[in-house]
């Protein structure tokens, strides 16, 4: 009889990760022209932030002539115009890029840390603690993030940028922790974890070893969206007067500098706003492509 006899092997649930899912995802999204453009633009924006001292044509806080050079509309000498203090708006936008991106990235790191920890604990421990933690999460999710930040920041008489970063981070981890919890729950019952346990490995170790690789692409998506959200929130808070303290320049702050004269000083709202929209757009495009790639995996 030439026909072989085989066992049916049922496989389901998450599979052990063999190759880097992130690398796979990046390779996949880079096939799309829109992602390539977004990646390139984001790279340029990040470079602008990193190289701010080298490319800014003027000192962002210098006030060369507070009478003759203030409130100038865009020109060759000042492509983005000047502000009421005769400072060059282009240079301030370039330095603002640095600050806004830094705040976005740092706050997101805070969010990711808290989100992964919270979700992992809830999923791992399970039971009553899990139920309580999830209800708490529901409640957190019911408070609009901006409102929560307003509530905290208004109560705090004066705060530093570092505190702002922490607050922004502490209000941005709710969705992620849900995803992490789901993954932990799925992993807990996954075959290969059971198998590994049978081989004598400790469950907690196994979970950690497999959790992160399985989560990497989702974390990257959450981080990308998170940075975009923080940038927008920070600008919004600055616009309400409770964001980045004034002497510094962030995109939101530059807009605030011209906010009460926005009709005449339109360039002060337009250019930092465009930078912001561009950044957020590229981040959204990349996040979307990444999550598409993740779903197709």
């Amino acid at each position, binding site marked *: 009889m030439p026909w072989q*006899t*085989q066992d049916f092997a049922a496989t389901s649930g998450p599979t052990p990760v063999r190759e880097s899912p992130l690398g796979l995802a990046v390779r996949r999204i880079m*096939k799309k022209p829109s992602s390539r453009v977004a990646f390139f633009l984001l790279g340029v924006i990040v470079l602008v932030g990193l190289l701010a001292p080298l490319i800014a044509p003027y000192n962002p806080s210098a006030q060369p002539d507070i009478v003759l050079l203030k409130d100038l509309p865009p020109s060759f000498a000042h492509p983005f115009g000047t502000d009421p203090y005769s400072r060059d708006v282009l240079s301030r936008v370039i330095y603002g890029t640095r600050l806004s991106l830094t705040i976005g990235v740092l706050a997101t790191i805070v969010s990711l840390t808290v989100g992964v920890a919270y979700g992992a604990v809830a999923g791992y421990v399970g039971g009553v603690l899990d139920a309580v933690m999830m209800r708490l999460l529901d409640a957190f999710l019911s408070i609009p993030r901006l409102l929560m930040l307003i509530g905290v920041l208004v109560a705090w008489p004066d705060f530093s940028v570092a505190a702002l970063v922490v607050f922004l981070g502490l209000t941005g981890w709710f969705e992620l922790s849900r995803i992490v919890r789901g993954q932990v729950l799925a992993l807990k019952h996954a075959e290969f974890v059971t198998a590994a346990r049978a081989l004598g490995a400790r469950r907690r170790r196994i979970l950690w070893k497999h959790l992160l690789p399985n989560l990497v692409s989702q974390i990257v998506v959450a981080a990308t969206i998170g940075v975009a959200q923080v940038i927008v929130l920070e600008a919004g808070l600055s616009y309400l007067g409770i964001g980045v303290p004034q002497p510094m320049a962030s995109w939101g702050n530059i807009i605030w500098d011209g906010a009460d004269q926005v009709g005449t000083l339109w360039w002060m709202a337009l250019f930092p706003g465009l930078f912001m929209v561009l950044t957020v757009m590229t981040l959204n495009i990349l996040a979307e492509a990444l999550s598409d790639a993740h779903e197709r995996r």
Partner: protein
Amino acid sequence: MTAPLLSIRNLRTWFYTESGVARAVDGVSLEIGAGETLGIVGESGCGKSVTALSILRLIQPPGRIEAGSIIEFEGKDIVTLGDDEIREIRGNRISMIFQEPMSALNPVFTVGDQVAEVARVHAKVSRKEAWDRAVEMLALTGIPDAESRARQYPHQLSGGMRQRVLIAMALMMKPALVIADEPTTALDVTIQAQILDLLVDLQKKIGTSILMITHDLGVIAETASRVIVMYAGEVVEEAQVDELFAKPHHPYTEGLIHSMPHIGHDQDRLNVIPGTVPAPTEWPAGCRFRERCPYSWDLCEAEHPPLYQIGTSHVSRCHLAVEPQRRNNPHPPLVVEKGVAAA
């Protein structure tokens, strides 16, 4: 045999994917006579469902029916019909029954609505009349208390009931041809038999032809008179049902018959053909079944086998037709050897 109802010649349906051109259907020809039941059998991925969808021009991008393919139905070439003309045919002259009775029904409409919709589209009748016809049809498919069942949503019906609904939908306009794509796969064994009986019964009442697509030779044995075996986008064997079971020629057909479950045997272990259907983007040169075949030899690699005439109405795409003695000396198929080597 009179002029066939449907005649497919050299159908090629290719999909242009990121990883290359998938030649899902690659030169299939077949004919169905009026009132006849033709079975198509093969593993999943062999191109039988794509053949069925091609007949109704339901291939979505990136798939495409290649130029030169001909699907002649009632004197018209379906491949070149306009959108409106093909819609006139769908559900009206040719209809189809799917394997997943749950997902094939729209969860947010009542089943009666969904059956009636066919009549509303094609018979241009009033809402009321369409509904009445739908209820009538549902009753005909053996749904008890059809009037009230028609007011229910798909999730409220059992799998067998849903399949009856799909059948009612398919037969609503008394079409010339019904394509049944794995109509019983999702059902449990007793219901399977009922549904097949129903199909055969209705076929007699209405006089429609049936194209029965399945991976299950048992279904074929019960319903079809003639059968086509497909593998890797091609027809590999065609014969009358009795002949095929009695004297399968192609090694693939042989494998399929061997892998049929037999009552009384140990059901935990099934005989299966080793390996899987190769990816449609990279059909092997020569015989496409070569690597899974226990008889393959040099010729199979060197030359793509043509359809050899085996008997009066029996053809097979296997070089064994030339060297039949090789059937007596099977060897482990290449895939098995590779597997051993890999382990």
